[in-house]
């Protein structure tokens, strides 16, 4: 499948701290790309660079072969949606209105006629249809996350950038969110998702990019990248990778013996 979004030689530094150092990532249409790595690896920064929010100090970001900073904001919003880790709302809008905000980029285009249908479908997909008239601040953390996911879906983008979308979700909704992401990819979209659960990444991603200390440490299909050696090294904790009995699914589990007491070392910088 074709490359729709690519970062080339991206370097981002805040003062003396280098967050990303020579990162190359290409995102293909039809693929789910999982971005994994320890805290402070630069995952969110990379997502922000791909979204066109952060201007890299060096390197380029291209969306559909165009410099992402050269694309008009409304045009950009029709091509890619971004779901941030934290989704707050200043005023108590009802859930349906929040999801309908995802349709804003399509105002004045032919697609505007589809607004009601798309918003309804997004509400149903994210399992928040029953909350449609509730106001956003009254929702639980997981319900807020699902509402925000529905808003991103309503944007009907070609590229979907999701920053830890499953962090607040229960198991059923985690699975549902990734199934939907994969369905969108099968329908032609490109999905980049930051995940901490490596088993989840292995189950749903077509490709895994492992980021550590601002560099790409692994890039490829889950079976090739998520090896015990690489994961243990990157996370600085012994990790077992094995296949689920009776299937070829990967299971990634940290080793939990007293000999490997995790150290709350100074890696948790940010």
């Amino acid at each position: 499948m074709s490359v729709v979004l690519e970062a080339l030689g991206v370097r981002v530094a805040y003062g003396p701290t280098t967050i990303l150092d020579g990162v190359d990532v290409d995102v293909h249409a039809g693929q789910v790309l999982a971005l994994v790595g320890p805290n402070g690896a630069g995952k969110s920064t990379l997502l922000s660079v791909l979204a066109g929010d952060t201007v890299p100090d060096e390197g380029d970001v291209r969306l559909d072969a165009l410099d992402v900073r050269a694309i008009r904001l409304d045009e950009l919003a029709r091509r890619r949606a971004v779901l941030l880790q934290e989704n707050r709302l200043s005023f108590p809008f009802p859930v349906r209105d929040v999801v309908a905000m995802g349709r804003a980029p399509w105002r004045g285009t032919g697609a505007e006629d589809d607004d009601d249908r798309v918003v309804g479908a997004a509400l149903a997909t994210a399992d928040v249809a029953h909350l449609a008239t509730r106001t956003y601040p009254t929702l639980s953390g997981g319900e807020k996350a699902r509402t925000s996911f529905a808003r991103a879906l309503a944007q009907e983008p070609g590229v979907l950038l999701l920053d830890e979308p499953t962090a607040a979700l229960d198991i059923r909704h985690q699975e549902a969110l990734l199934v939907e992401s994969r369905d969108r990819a099968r329908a032609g979209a490109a999905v980049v998702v930051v995940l901490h659960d490596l088993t989840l990444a292995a189950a749903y991603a077509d490709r895994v990019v492992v980021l550590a200390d601002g560099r790409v440490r692994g890039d490829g299909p889950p079976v090739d990248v998520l090896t015990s050696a690489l994961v243990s090294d990157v996370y600085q904790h012994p990790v077992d990778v094995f296949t689920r009995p009776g299937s070829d699914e990967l299971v990634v589990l940290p080793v939990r013996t007293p000999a490997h007491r995790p150290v709350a070392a100074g890696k948790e910088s940010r």
Partner: protein
Amino acid sequence: MPTTTAAPTPTTSPSAAVPTRSRRIPALFVGLSAALLVLAVLSAGMGQLSVPPAEVVGSLLHHLGLDVGPVPAHPNGDAALWTIRFPRVAMALLVGAALATGGALMQGVFGNPLADPGVVGVSSGAAVGACAVIVLGLTFLGPWTVAATAFVGGLLTTILVYATARENGRTEVVTLVLTGVAVNAVAGAALALLTFLGDTQEREQIVFWQLGSLNGTRWPYVAVVAPIVAVGIAGAVLVARRLDLLALGERSARHLGVDVERLRVVCIVLVALLTAGAVAFCGIIAFVGLVVPHLVRMAVGPGHRVLIPASALGGAVLLLAADLVARTAVPYADLPIGMLTALVGGPFFFWLIRRTRRSAGGWA
């Protein structure tokens, strides 16, 4: 989560709540418009020279070239209406609409329901500009001089507050209120200096101006304020949809195609414009911008496309009513309207702070 979903209401309320809210919006506009018309006619008729409502309407229609209805029976009735009452009513409408719209706009761009030109000190900044004109005797723009300097003062303060009170795209309540305290202190010092520099007559002017009053409104003043307010409200209506998206935060708004930097600049200029228009001839009238948008949000929700026009209308109604009380509560006395709005608005602000603190879980 199970406890919230198990609540018995959701099965019935979602279907019922949607039509209720959508029916509420036209009801609100019709109600406010009706209140506006009734109050305007009543207010124009009441005072030391009383003119019955029918004669007020009659006088209006006759001046419009329609010979319908009775004309004022009192020999000075018509003159009193057209030289004193009508300009004052018009000014109350304009100033109320400007203050409430400015408040709604400011709350939208600050992402904080407690933002208000009076609270954060924009009104005081505009006041410094206007008082400078009184004391220094500036006339470089004719009747527009006060409005222009008030606009400059308001603009500078808005920029200052905006630059200092925001962090990561939103303003915490504590920061906002404390910034307001600081700005009001500095503006208060500037006003004190101007009061000190002025002669007796100028001092009196400044003091009354700070109390806020619509007393002495003439048509030329209305002619200056009307276009300013009209531009301000029209601009506010145009940015309404984008303000909705800004509620998601600056980054998310940008992801939805909003040019946040430009929206910010436009909103700051509009707030300064509306505040200057309100403050230029009537002085500081606080809390209208806080109370009105809040009540509108409670009635019809936070969507700015409804909030902004409804606030303009509601502000006009509120100030018209407040001015009527100011003129008629004590016989032969014209109470300062700023005092009245602060008397009601102060406790309301206090209640709002407590409520926000509770719902936001701390001073966030």
